[in-house]
């Protein structure tokens, strides 16, 4: 009788395996979900920076195309003999290009949109003797000065 009780008290009761299994499944699910989340956020982060790079070089390509057109204009302006007038007239026809006279030539400025928040600003000086010099090839925020994006903070005056 006592022996029998002894066997029953060895720990082979019903429920231990279920508890163990539930613990294991909970742990595994937790690790799996955390791993998936980490991998997904990492992937999304890389995807976003990859997309930004694509947008940047798309804008860069457009800027290069405009530069090629401007160089063509400058080339024909040099050949015409009236560089400044000829260049200002032909370059002014290219959309988004602003031409201003500069020392020994003309300065062309234009912006190409990279995405909703930034743009590529380009400034190139074309010399009357031929050739050009890039003065600016810079990506910058496209937020307009005076844009209503400031935070209203207390200015220190008691009303």
């Amino acid at each position, binding site marked *: 009788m006592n022996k029998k009780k002894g066997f029953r008290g*060895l720990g*082979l009761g019903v429920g231990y395996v279920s508890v163990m299994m539930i613990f294991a499944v909970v742990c*595994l699910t937790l*690790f799996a979900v955390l*791993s998936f989340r*980490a991998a997904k956020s990492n992937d999304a982060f890389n995807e976003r*920076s990859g997309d930004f790079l694509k947008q940047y070089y798309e804008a860069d390509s457009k800027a290069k195309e405009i530069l090629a057109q401007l160089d063509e204009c400058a080339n024909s302006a040099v050949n015409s003999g009236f560089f400044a007038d000829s260049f200002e007239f032909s370059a002014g026809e290219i959309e988004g290009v602003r031409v201003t006279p500069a020392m020994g030539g003309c300065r062309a400025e234009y912006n190409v949109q990279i995405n909703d928040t930034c743009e590529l600003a380009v400034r190139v*000086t074309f010399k009357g003797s031929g050739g050009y*010099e890039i003065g600016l090839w*810079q990506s910058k925020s496209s937020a307009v000065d005076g844009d209503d994006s400031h935070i209203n903070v207390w200015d220190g005056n008691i009303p």
Partner: protein
Amino acid sequence: MKKYRNKSLSESISTIGSMLLFMLFAGCTLMIIAVAAGTYSRISDNFDKTFGASSALRYISNKIKSSEKAEIIGSGNGIKLESGNITNVICFYDGGLYENSMATDSPNDYKGEKIFELSGLEIASDGDWYKITVVLNGEESSTYVRRGDFPENQT
């Protein structure tokens, strides 16, 4: 009497067998949990590594692209970037990448805020480009960026 002895023997064998089976189950379960934890830690480490090295590279190159004038400082472990009237100094110091933004004409020795954990940074001028090399956990990664110091901006 003999019957009872046989019965108790079979019961004890059965109990020991079940215990062994249970222990095997428990051992396998713990092993599977350990493997899962290892996989999670590997994926998580990979994320941390990615965020460190390549983000630092992209950050510095984007900063160079958005600056009007760039100048390597120190022995190549930092770069000074000017844009409008703001000067940004990005440099490697004491196991981290620090950035300090200030007005161009204000003298400032403050090293700035730590933005990335790194083991090393080297910025070298290579023809028309800057070669940026970042070291993290013994792994080196580098990228090239066009130099932003155009003739018009040089003083």
